[in-house]
């Protein structure tokens, strides 16, 4: 494999990898505040993209995407208020099964609304064939959009969690719910907010990747599996590690596709998931002793 080819595969790996990272960050936001894994996380991306595609018929692109993100954010909040909040005291297993049910319902609803045709948003700038050359590799302009927006999402979230009052309140809740309550933080609202936040960033990621991978009603579940793999790889709840893990998985997939039949691409993430679950369920970036304490 020559150098430009390596760059080519590397860039495509980083592109999908950054989307996996965003899905994983969405998992982490909800996991830290509630301790549950939201199986419907992948569906947020598809709802966002599909809504934007439909709105694009009427509105300019930027407005369609903005509205789609808002709609998905509201749906995420509603989902929590209607389905998760009433079962607040239920076991984690019950809550997970509820999110599995939700992902099926959302998927089936999307099938009836948008049928099974793949749809797509237009390229944000230029067309399908406009590329720039980097180290001899051809890169679509949309790839730069994906990377840029992913970086903005991660940076924005970091600032939000670190420097704003609301973000700190959410972190306090994730850390110790009881103590946060005693400090006057409304913990229920924080859980709703975490669902809204991960729905919102999911929708944005779904829109920005749509021109490249197209959007189909049943693409949510595979994305969720990969996002979960990445979240586990980085250690559940650790968003910065998830970004690194996302890029790693993306690169791994890209190079497996370059060497083997593309049919195996889907299996890569699952094999990685099983290996990590068996050997290091606390993630790659946690020292073993700390990991054992957490898993206990």
């Amino acid at each position, binding site marked *: 494999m020559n150098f430009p080819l390596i760059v080519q595969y590397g860039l495509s790996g980083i592109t999908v990898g950054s989307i996996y990272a965003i899905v994983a960050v969405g998992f982490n936001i909800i996991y830290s505040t509630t301790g549950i894994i939201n199986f419907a996380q992948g569906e947020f991306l598809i709802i966002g993209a599909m809504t934007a595609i439909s709105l694009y018929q009427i509105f300019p692109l930027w407005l369609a995407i903005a509205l789609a993100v808002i709609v998905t954010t509201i749906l995420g909040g509603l989902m929590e208020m209607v389905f998760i909040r009433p079962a607040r005291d239920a076991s984690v297993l019950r809550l997970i099964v509820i999110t*599995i*049910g939700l992902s099926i319902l959302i998927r089936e609803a999307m099938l009836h609304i948008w049928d099974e045709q793949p749809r797509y948003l237009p390229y944000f700038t230029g067309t399908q064939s406009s590329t720039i050359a980097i180290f001899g590799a051809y890169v679509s302009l949309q790839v730069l959009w994906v990377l840029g927006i992913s970086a903005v999402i991660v940076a924005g979230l970091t600032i939000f969690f670190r420097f704003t009052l609301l973000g700190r309140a959410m972190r306090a809740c994730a850390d110790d719910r009881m103590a946060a309550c005693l400090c006057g933080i409304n913990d229920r609202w924080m859980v709703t907010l975490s669902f809204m936040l991960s729905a919102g960033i999911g929708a944005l990621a779904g829109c920005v990747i749509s021109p490249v991978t197209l959007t189909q009603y049943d693409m949510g579940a595979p994305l969720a599996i990969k996002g979960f793999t990445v979240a586990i790889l980085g250690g559940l709840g650790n968003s910065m590690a998830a970004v690194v893990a996302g890029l790693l998985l993306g690169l791994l997939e890209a190079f497996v596709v370059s060497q083997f039949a593309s049919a195996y691409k889907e299996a890569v993430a699952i094999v990685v998931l099983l290996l990590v679950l068996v050997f290091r369920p606390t993630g790659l970036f946690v020292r073993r002793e700390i990991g054992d304490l957490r898993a206990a």
Partner: protein
Amino acid sequence: MMRLRRYWPVAAIALAVIVVQIVLSLAGTTYYMTQLTMSAYYALVVIGLCLLMGYAGQASLGHAGFFAIGGYTVAYMTTVNLLAYRDTGLIRALHWLGLVVQWRNLYGADVLSFSPWPAFLAALALTGLIAFLIGVPVIRLKGHYLAMATLGFGLIVYRIVLGTKALGQADGISNVPPFHLIPGLEVNGRSAFRIQNYYIAWALVLVSMVLAINLVHSRVGRALRSIHQSEEAAHSLGVNTYRYKLAVFVLSALFAAVGGALLTHYNGSIGPSEATVMKSVRYVAIVAIGGMANLWGAMLMAILLNFLSLRGVFGTFDDAVFGAILIFIMLFAPQGLLRLPRLRSLSSLLSRRPHG
């Protein structure tokens, strides 16, 4: 006396099975029996999963994978054509042992393939082995880790059957021959064998129920329930929690494999749709609606929901119905539909709580 009481639902169901057959035959609507037979085979998967989820408290989102391994193994072994190797020593030996059989398929071509019995036993052995190998690392995991790991396993099985040429890829395997259990009894989907197969399937369901009930009431069953309630407490009392969980995992996989193998013979074919995650989720939904630790509830719901689904009652909302059921049950009736206050009197008639 107490022991006999445990089995009276078996007698009641057996009676109901006979009554239903007579009514359907008299009404001339024997075609319902086809779906009832298929539902019975799916019920086997649910009974096994109920032991794992309801009693041992371990979730599995990969049981369609075990069903598919069972089904695909018998389908492959009974349809693979070994005619070209007829004169090799191994095949001669197998022939002499009666393990392979020569027959003529739908297109009139001669086929030399494994007979159903060795294929069936091989399917069970293979499923048991895979379940064991997967279970050894995976069953240590808890909660959503276990759910995701079994989901991952199910997805891999799906990818393999979809991508392997020998397994027919998207078309699956068809022309699977009938399964002669003993002379005079065969698992065969043709309408002439409808009543016979209805009874074969239901006999199997009842035998499985008796096995499962006995297991639940044995020392093993008590150990499993103690694991479900508190793994630490069970462990501290000297229950080897890991070994019990692993054993139930393998056992429930075998239940799924039996269902898969026999349904494949009955339908004469199997396709990748049997291995999808949605199928696994369905089985979980059925166990949940039956009340998790409630074998009779799970079995009845398996029959009811699969029958309705196979009859096409839910139309294009088939998957959505199962998703909605999952949410509804988990939100409002985590003890299962039969334990809702209004239905409780009915439930006490239908099912003595197996433990209590």
